[in-house]
């Protein structure tokens, strides 16, 4: 009886997703299920279509065919900003922060959005204590509180990546998509990033694209393997590790 009650709900579903760009087939017949509150990693060699998949889920591109469901609701082709308001948030593989604004302002942008303060042209920003507090809270979670008045473009790479994640979690999303969050990081920075990610995604759904297998196996509850636009396998880390198809295609080459 207990097992039945615990059957996980799918927070995200992709059904029959295809994507081509000017004749080039990038994704073919993708079917994916992400359970609520799970940590789901998507791995695959370069060019397998991972970022494209992310862009499709988060509304940057429209799929050529197929449908996407968020909490059971069809979201195919919905605008990114609406998706964020529905509880989805993402980070970018290539750091996409507000370079000309300070660290504090960066996070505050997201906090304001979360609090639905968008078109207000009468209140004074500096006097919004609640906003400021929430901003500082996120800043301390990502470890950038001391650097709050620094211009974002001047941070070190690792700090920018932390801010990148910070922007994703500041809107308090239910489902977080991180696109290669540890790209370009040293071993130590990577470990810190993993700790950060585990902390901030506590109780939320996480979909993470990663190349670093250590990161993947230390975070993921389930893994999906993307290979040349198709899902090769999808399941528990142990299953994936032992899957022959996967071993042949990918794990052998990519072991870090």
């Amino acid at each position, binding site marked *: 009886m207990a097992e039945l009650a615990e059957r996980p709900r799918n927070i995200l579903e992709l059904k029959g997703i295809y994507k081509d760009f000017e004749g080039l087939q990038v994704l073919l017949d993708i079917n994916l299920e992400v359970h609520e509150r799970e940590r789901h990693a998507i791995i695959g060699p370069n060019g397998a279509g991972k970022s494209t998949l992310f862009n499709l889920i*988060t509304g940057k591109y429209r799929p050529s065919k197929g449908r996407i469901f968020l909490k059971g609701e069809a979201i195919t082709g919905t*605008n*990114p*900003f609406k998706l*964020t*308001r529905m509880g989805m*948030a*993402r980070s*970018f593989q290539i750091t*996409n*922060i*507000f*370079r*000309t*604004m300070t660290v504090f*302002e960066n996070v*505050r*942008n*997201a906090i*304001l*959005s*979360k609090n639905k*303060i*968008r*078109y*207000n*042209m*009468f*209140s*004074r*920003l*500096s006097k*919004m204590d609640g906003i400021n507090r929430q901003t500082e809270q996120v800043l301390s979670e990502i470890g950038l509180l001391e650097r709050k008045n620094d211009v974002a*473009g001047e941070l070190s790479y690792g700090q920018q990546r932390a801010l990148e994640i910070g*922007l994703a979690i*500041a*809107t308090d999303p239910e489902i977080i998509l991180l696109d290669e969050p540890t790209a370009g990081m040293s071993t130590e920075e990577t470990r810190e990033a993993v700790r950060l990610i585990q902390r901030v995604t506590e109780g939320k759904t996480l979909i993470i694209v990663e190349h670093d297998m250590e990161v993947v196996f230390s975070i993921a509850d389930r893994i999906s393997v993307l290979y040349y636009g198709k899902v090769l396998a999808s399941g528990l880390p142990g299953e994936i590790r032992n899957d022959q198809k996967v071993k042949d295609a990918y794990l052998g080459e990519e072991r870090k």
Partner: protein
Amino acid sequence: MKNRSFYLWVGIALGALGILFPHVLPKFQLRMVTEIVVVALLVMTWKMMLNEAGLFSFGHAVYFGLGAYASVLGWLHIKGLSLMSGILLGGLVAGLVGFILSAFLVRMSGTYYALLTLAFNQLIWAIVWKWRNVTGGDDGLGKFPKPDLLGISMKDPTNFYYLSVVLVGVCLFFCWYFTKTPLGNVTKSIKSNEERTRFIGLNVGASKIIFLTMLAFFAGISGALYAQFQEFIGASSIDLVMSTHIIFMAFIGGIGHFWGPLLGSGIYVYLSEYLSHYTDRWELIFGVVVVILVLLAPQGILGITKKRK
């Protein structure tokens, strides 16, 4: 900003001068200062469109002219329309047109946007010019009422001067204050990284439209004030040449500084008054000077552009 107190002091100095002017300047000069102040508001709205929204408009005179025409038509045809209501009417009409245009233009990239503003300027100018029955075409509209404000006659240049300074001052203050509000912040973040702004849940298009509508509104107010100042309004207030002058004024004054538009407006009004005595072609000289200025000092005066990181 380390310059904050500097700006404050400039503001205070200007304020003091502002109050003193009518008592020290001859009528003619006072009128020039009034004109400078009214036009400065217009130039400020253009500058803000560039600086905050990153949009270069070749057709800003549209809002100025429509605001002027709307208010004048109001004073001519609506019996007993008060001064402030007429000015407000001008602002609202300009704002409405701004809303419609920006709803259409907002999805365009910078280059398309610029081209389209130019094209729309021509279109609206042509309509105004040809619709003689309503707008007087080339001859324009004059002889419209100049209602008193709170019982004070606006025909006295001093009174009108004070009205302009106060009204423009309020509008300029709001423009400044805007940058400290959440919507002002959204505008800033769009400029910093439009894509990320979308992905943190903000409707970029809607924010731009609201911002641009607000700017059009203020430009319309400037137009309405100008119409009363001139006691005349013609098609030349809505044509491409006027748009060009706005651009030139903005750049001469410096688009990187808050008071730039006032400076640019001042230089322009003075030069147009005095240079035109010497040569018919002063506009050409003015234009060439601005172009050379932009060529030689793109970073110096014009720091705030998309290229600045």
